[in-house]
């Protein structure tokens, strides 16, 4: 075998010196590798936030789609408006009325899921180094978007009633004192991802007041608002401040995520820029998806379907909370969501959910470590559990396995102690970009 002469080193990437600085965190990670196992049916995945669309009336959807193609195919399969289908925008107004929002179809920009709305909002407002205020913890997909635009995320503390107004005031003052500019507050007031809690009605007005006084724009991300288990939908922040709030909505949880239809509601000037940015990005949101949603809303009992979803998710939430009470070792705490998809679990002192994940995968259960939901490396002691997708039986089994893993980890940490020098892992939200299983 001929051995050639030594050559310059190879990096297996011809463009390694050309990438934009914003790609710095886009690397392979052990956690992502472990999620490849978590997607196997043998593993009870409490990680993914995938809506459970088994409850969808697929026959009716099929009829709707077939009729759409036959009757309006040449429109549905053509390019469309950058702002989105006008009929659908009118229907979106009707959906939002359930949360007290009075909007005009012109105020709406239809997007490729609300994730694209988040991307567009960030694109039009953020220069590298600008500050975004976000809850602590916050949605991993938002943090990934913010990181890709090189924003500095400053987290603001939450409790069981959502964002804490005093913490918000303090954060605004601290950022201002440091000479930096806050571009907006990003908040998920209803059935928060990942904490599962709601911003209490009492705090809603206060948060808006603080932001108005400090001239901070509010981005209200509300994918789960109609999925409350007990009461009527909460009143949206946007319902009480049309100029100071940009509202992001989605059909991913109330209809079907595969259609990728979301929207943004914004004041006129902002909306104009959103549409231009959207056209630069995707020309137009998929017309076929929009018209499918529109036909579904027009011909199907969508309110009843949302009720079905709520009942299904409530049963799963009950199973998870019951299993947590039954199995979790002492020192473990969790939130009590009244809607949405998620429970936020905090582990006994000294445990690290990210370090524990391989052990959990070995035990055939998966979750998302809390660090994914912080831009600053915090959150090691917590994890997000999703109850949306597995059956109640699988949820109970998953929590039982997880409790065993935590007990083993407690034993290990008791043995080795919590090292004095232990520091949070470096922040790298882009390495945990949500992907279909993490959303």
């Amino acid at each position: 075998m001929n051995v050639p002469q030594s050559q310059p080193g190879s990096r297996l990437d011809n463009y390694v010196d050309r990438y934009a600085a914003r790609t710095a965190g886009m690397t392979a990670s052990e956690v992502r590798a472990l999620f490849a196992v978590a997607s196997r049916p043998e593993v009870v995945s409490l990680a993914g936030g995938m809506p459970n669309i088994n409850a969808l009336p697929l026959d009716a959807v099929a009829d709707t789609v077939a009729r759409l193609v036959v009757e309006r195919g040449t429109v549905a399969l053509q390019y469309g408006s950058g702002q989105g289908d006008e009929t659908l925008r009118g229907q979106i107004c009707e959906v939002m009325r359930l949360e007290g929002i009075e909007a005009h179809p012109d105020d709406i920009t239809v997007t490729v899921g609300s994730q694209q709305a988040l991307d567009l909002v960030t694109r039009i407002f953020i220069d590298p180094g600008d500050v975004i205020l976000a809850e602590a913890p916050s949605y991993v997909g938002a943090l990934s978007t913010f990181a890709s635009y090189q924003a500095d995320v400053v987290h603001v503390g939450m409790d069981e009633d959502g964002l804490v107004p005093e913490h918000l005031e303090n954060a605004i003052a601290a950022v201002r004192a440091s000479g930096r500019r806050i571009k907006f507050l990003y908040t998920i007031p209803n059935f928060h991802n990942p904490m599962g809690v709601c911003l209490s009605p009492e705090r809603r007005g206060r948060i808006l007041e603080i932001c108005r006084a400090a001239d901070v724009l509010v981005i209200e991300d509300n994918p789960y608002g109609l999925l409350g288990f007990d009461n009527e939908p909460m009143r949206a922040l946007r319902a009480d401040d049309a100029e100071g709030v940009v509202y992001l909505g989605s059909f991913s949880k109330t209809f079907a995520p595969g259609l990728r239809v979301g929207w943004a509601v914004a004041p006129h000037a902002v909306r104009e820029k959103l549409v231009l940015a959207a056209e630069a990005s995707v020309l137009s949101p998929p017309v076929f998806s929009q018209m499918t949603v529109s036909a579904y809303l027009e011909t199907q009992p969508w309110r009843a379907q949302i009720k079905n979803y709520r009942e299904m998710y409530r049963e799963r939430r009950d199973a998870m909370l019951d299993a947590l009470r039954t199995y979790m070792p002492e020192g473990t705490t969790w939130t009590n969501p009244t809607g949405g998809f998620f429970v936020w679990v905090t582990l006994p002192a000294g445990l690290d959910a990210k370090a524990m994940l391989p052990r959990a995968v070995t035990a055939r259960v998966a979750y998302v470590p809390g660090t994914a939901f912080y831009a600053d490396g915090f959150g090691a002691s917590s994890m997000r559990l999703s109850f949306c997708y597995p059956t109640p039986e699988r949820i109970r089994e998953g929590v039982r396995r997880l409790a065993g893993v935590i007990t083993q980890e407690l034993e290990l940490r008791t043995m080795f102690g919590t090292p004095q020098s232990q520091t949070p892992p470096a922040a790298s939200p882009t390495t945990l970009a949500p992907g279909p299983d993490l959303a």
Partner: protein
Amino acid sequence: MSDLGRVVVLAGGLSHERDVSLRSGRRIADALRAIDVDVEVLDVDGRLLAALTADRPDVVFPALHGSYGEDGAVRDVLELLGIPYVGSRPDASRLTFDKPMAKAALRAAGVRTPDSVTLPQDTFRDLGAGAVLDAIVARLGLPLFVKPARGGSALGASVARTLDELSSAMVGAFAYGDVALVETYLEGTEVAVSVVDTGDGPTALPVVEIVPDTGVYDYTARYTAGMTEFFAPSRLAPEAAQAAVQAALTAHQVLRLRDVSRTDLIVDAEGTPWFLEANVAPGMTETSLLPLAIAAAGLDAGILYRELLHRAAKRG
């Protein structure tokens, strides 16, 4: 179309290295398809045996990493079914996958390997972690390299430069398995030597030198293109490169490896190779070392894999 008949690549499984295995499997299949070998890729799950018996392959290429793949288990099943496969037999796989056992075998054969101790989690519980850690540091010093005794892709592996870091490193390793290998951390040139045998005896491919940007060839450095610089062949002095080749050939023979293997070594300042571990199912992803070595040897990966399949099929 080749004359190999039905060829199945096994990839995936439920080990922590599932993702790497899927990528290796895809790459092997692509390389074979590029030379018109018809290949099917199958996952290792509850449907595998039914699939293998319903439409029996003529030869299998296991691209499974970690447990199931490298511990001999799936190879045992292939033996039971009488299906020929590329690579080492189950007993050799088990020996090699157990890093402490492999180190002992190489040490007995005269190949240097870092001093080490292998301890199960129970030992720390029964004897007290603090006392055991103190004893480790007293015997081996610092820095130390800690890794699961069985496993790959650097999962659960880390360097400990202080006693405090050693505690964390132990916890990290035990997250992936019940037994940890703690060895002295050697500074030097990190290299990998792949050995292939297509029928003319084990032959070493060019030595691949690994220079990760961060200084640590961890999971991120392994699987993020651009984060590691590779030199193939290495920049080692000819004598040191030859010594590395000889160490890899010795590992291949002593561990009774078959068809293909990869041996990871540290070459110290004197040019002496130190055995770290050997792999019965070397990674074959876009950023893996064996494909780099194959390319550096001027070989076509597909043709080499086809030769290995022919050899396995002939062996029966």
